[in-house]
């Protein structure tokens, strides 16, 4: 079994905790160079997911006049969240919140007390916080796809600073930092709740409040370069190995199995999407198979520390099918303009994955948790989802209202028609 490092808490059930609490930063132990090597690598891989991975994925999908704007947003989020994290957000997630610890952490401002020699579990705490930081970066960056092509850059920056502080940090603390969801035994190995659901719901709220892009849905807004999108998808896939297998916190069997199931789920979901589209429209598209793999990757995320290959197949297939429906049907049904399908893929994929984890973590279904009470665990997982959906949804609504009131969130019609690259950044993506 994997070696885990976490605060000593009163276990509800040993196996649940082993898989539900992989991230606490406090325990001291002896440094293991193999684990450290893998966690250094994983940190690089997860940063690689956001820049350039995700920013390429999104850059390819927007129109040529907005290609730089989405890259700028991802890049600036990366910089800004790094600063917030270093100054206070690491403490909010992984600090000791004392009597409020069920809800929020505190302390560790400016990464105080982290020295070269400070060890967390079997790796340096400097590495632990770095790895966690990359998750705090990608979560807001995921939302860029929902408000692409029409949100003000300044408003985006202010909103994201608030959102990371008020939504991401608490939710991450609840699930990974010793908060109440973790105490309850909710399983979220690598961030189905913390990353995909919290961002997916916020993206949905944001894009509805922001309104549709002018011309949507009647005008064709064909991707400027699916080449970039396929490259971005590939990088996300590779980087996801760091995301999921890195969440083991060690170079061990849990990491190995996490990588394997991650890969399987991505592949199955991609094929599912491709085949369904093929039968629906007569032709398979590269955007389809690519989007499908992202759905499969999002869905396996919470499950990757506890399911086996068979679970991965089921989760991948379900994610491919439900997200296909989310991006192709649901969006049109309700008519919101989630430009690049953040909710359809990450929101729905995350929910599907977190739920199915409750079943497929059980060794009865090929998972690694013995004696898991599937019914109870499904209930716990549903609670985790519900709490996050409500919290992220409501807080996002409030934050959007606040920022809109302060500085306005949407660009003018003329800026939108010019394209954000020129209108907001005085740059053009291509001068060929």
């Amino acid at each position: 079994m994997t070696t885990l490092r976490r605060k000593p808490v009163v276990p509800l059930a040993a196996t649940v905790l082993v898989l539900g609490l992989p991230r606490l930063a406090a325990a001291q132990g002896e440094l293991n160079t193999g684990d450290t090597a893998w966690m250094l690598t994983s940190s690089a891989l997860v940063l690689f997911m956001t820049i350039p991975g995700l920013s390429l994925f999104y850059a390819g999908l927007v129109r040529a006049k907005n290609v730089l704007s989405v890259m700028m947003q991802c890049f600036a989020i990366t910089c800004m969240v790094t600063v917030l994290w270093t100054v206070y957000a690491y403490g909010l997630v992984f600090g000791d919140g004392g009597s409020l610890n069920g809800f929020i952490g505190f302390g560790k401002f400016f990464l105080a007390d982290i020295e070269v020699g400070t060890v967390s579990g079997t790796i340096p705490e400097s590495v632990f916080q770095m790895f966690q930081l990359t998750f705090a970066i990608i979560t807001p960056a995921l939302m860029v796809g929902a408000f692409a092509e029409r949100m003000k850059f300044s408003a985006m920056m202010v909103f994201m600073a608030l959102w990371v502080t008020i939504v991401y940090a608490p939710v991450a603390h609840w699930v990974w930092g010793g908060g109440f969801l973790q105490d309850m035994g909710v399983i979220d190995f690598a961030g189905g709740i913390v990353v995909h659901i919290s961002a997916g719901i916020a993206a949905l709220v944001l894009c509805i409040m922001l309104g549709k892009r002018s011309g949507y849905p009647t005008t064709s807004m064909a991707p400027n370069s699916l080449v970039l999108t396929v490259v971005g998808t590939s990088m996300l896939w590779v980087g996801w190995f760091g995301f999921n297998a890195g969440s083991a916190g060690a170079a061990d069997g849990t990491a190995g199995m996490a990588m394997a199931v991650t890969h399987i789920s991505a592949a199955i979901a991609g094929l599912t999407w491709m085949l369904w589209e093929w039968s629906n429209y007569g032709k398979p598209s590269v955007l389809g198979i690519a989007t499908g793999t992202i759905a499969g990757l999002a869905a396996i995320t919470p499950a990757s520390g506890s399911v086996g290959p068979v679970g991965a197949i089921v989760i991948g297939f379900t994610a491919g099918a439900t997200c296909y429906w989310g991006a192709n049907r649901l969006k049109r049904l309700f008519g919101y303009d989630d430009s690049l399908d953040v909710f359809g893929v990450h929101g729905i994929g995350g929910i599907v994955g977190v739920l199915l984890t409750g079943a497929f973590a059980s060794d009865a279904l090929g998972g690694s948790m013995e004696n898991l009470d599937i019914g109870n665990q499904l209930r716990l997982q549903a609670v985790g989802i519900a709490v996050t959906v409500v919290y992220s949804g409501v807080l996002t609504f409030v934050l959007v209202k606040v920022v809109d009131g302060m500085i306005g969130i949407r660009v003018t019609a003329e800026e939108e028609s010019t394209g954000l690259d020129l209108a907001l950044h005085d740059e053009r993506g291509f001068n060929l």
Partner: protein
Amino acid sequence: MKLVSAIIKPHVLDDVRDQLAKAGVQGLTVTEVKGFGRQKGHTEIYRGAEYTVDFVPKMKVETVVSDQLVEATTDAITKAARTGSIGDGKVFVSEVMQAVRIRTGEIGDEAL
């Protein structure tokens, strides 16, 4: 002098150029354009939305020739560009009043 301007399918361009050279045309200018006509465009799918793109990629070939060369030019293009399927394009002829070769200042037919 006349301007002979032809909208053709992109893949016949090399043939057209060769035939024009044979017909005695010494210079021409080509532009990538998009055409809209009887030939239908194509469909693009984007996550469940099908969009019809009505415009078809075409090439515009323009050459200014002396009056006596107009017919040979038109024939050469028509011959080389005809595939027989819809969308083969058009040839238009119009009057040009003056031509100047920038390098030498030559004018009229000399300049072509």
